[in-house]
């Protein structure tokens, strides 16, 4: 389960790091970050994007980002999710799903991770052709966008920690 200080632990802050006092001054922001994480990865109403698929997307995004701490964290979440065994091969971000719905979802997640600037209305049309619902398109964007945010908060903190 995700702890309130998971950003600190994902950033690899030492137990006695002075950065912990700095994070405490932004406790409200970190708390909302954790609530957001819950909402995108383990929501009460997952819609068409199961917690397993959400965790899979997080594993692939972390792998694309080359962030092995995040990747291990999300692989642990993924491997404990229902039906993960059937999707395990897709944890490799270069593998493409056979199922057209899942392929469209993972392709779009990959674009949001790597090159959102290239997004066009055609990407949304592609998702709709694969029968991804409007609500799931929004859920997918929020998930991929949260992961981009989290990866950068963690990367930035590691840089400050490394310089102290």
């Amino acid at each position, binding site marked *: 389960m995700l702890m309130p200080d998971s950003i600190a632990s994902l950033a690899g802050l030492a137990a006695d790091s*002075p*950065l912990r006092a*700095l*994070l405490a*001054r*932004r406790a*409200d*922001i970190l708390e*909302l*970050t954790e*609530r*957001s994480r*819950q*909402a*995108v990865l383990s*929501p*009460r*109403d997952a*819609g068409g994007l199961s917690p397993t698929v959400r965790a899979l997307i997080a594993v692939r995004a972390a792998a*694309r*980002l*080359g*962030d092995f701490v995040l990747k291990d964290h999300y692989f642990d979440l993924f491997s404990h999710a229902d039906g993960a065994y059937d999707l395990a091969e897709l944890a490799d971000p270069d593998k493409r799903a056979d199922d057209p719905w899942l392929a469209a979802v993972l392709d779009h997640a990959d674009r*949001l*991770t*790597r*090159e*959102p*600037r290239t*997004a066009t*209305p055609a*990407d*949304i049309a592609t998702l709709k052709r694969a029968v991804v619902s*409007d*609500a799931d*398109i*929004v*859920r997918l*964007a*929020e998930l*991929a*966008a*949260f992961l*981009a*945010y*989290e*990866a*950068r*908060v963690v*990367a*930035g*903190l590691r*840089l*400050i920690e*490394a*310089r102290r």
Partner: protein
Amino acid sequence: MKPAVHHYTTDVLDWRPFVTPVKLDEASPEQREALKITPSNKKVSDYVLVLAHDPETLLHRSPLFNKIMFGTDGLDRASRELGAIGSSIVNRCIYCVAAHARQYNQLTKTTALVDTIFADETRARLPPREQAVFDFAVKLSAFPPAATGDDIARLSKAGLDPLDIFDLILSAAIFGWANRLMHTLGEPVRAG
């Protein structure tokens, strides 16, 4: 149909969604709760009504965004806006750039810096403090993030303390989030 805006501007823009916004009179109690906390004077925007498709996330992201951008201590607001602009240039979110370049200009009562960024994008040459802030936001926003310890050292030299630097990380990062919604779920069009 009005053409989408693809160039940098500080004009007030409208946003046209690619997915159907939630209809306010059909919104569920949970969607209504998530929509309520968004600052809205006259009407709820199509952007927020699109995000209401995922009310659990909207409920937390709106206050998260506001706390990061409008925090009352730590990094000055203009520098947070510059962090937002850096991310939005990397991700080419024209709507986000317009809104936050406008904010930056209002806060600093200048236009030259924004004009330089519009012309030269991530290669813009700026005064030292603004350069350090902008370059850090640009590098952190890259895929994969490319900021280094040297960039942190430049921020320190420019007078940012660790809390200021963390606030800058947060403002660039939250725009990595906002850009991925605004630039991919719809497009900017001229207002009116």
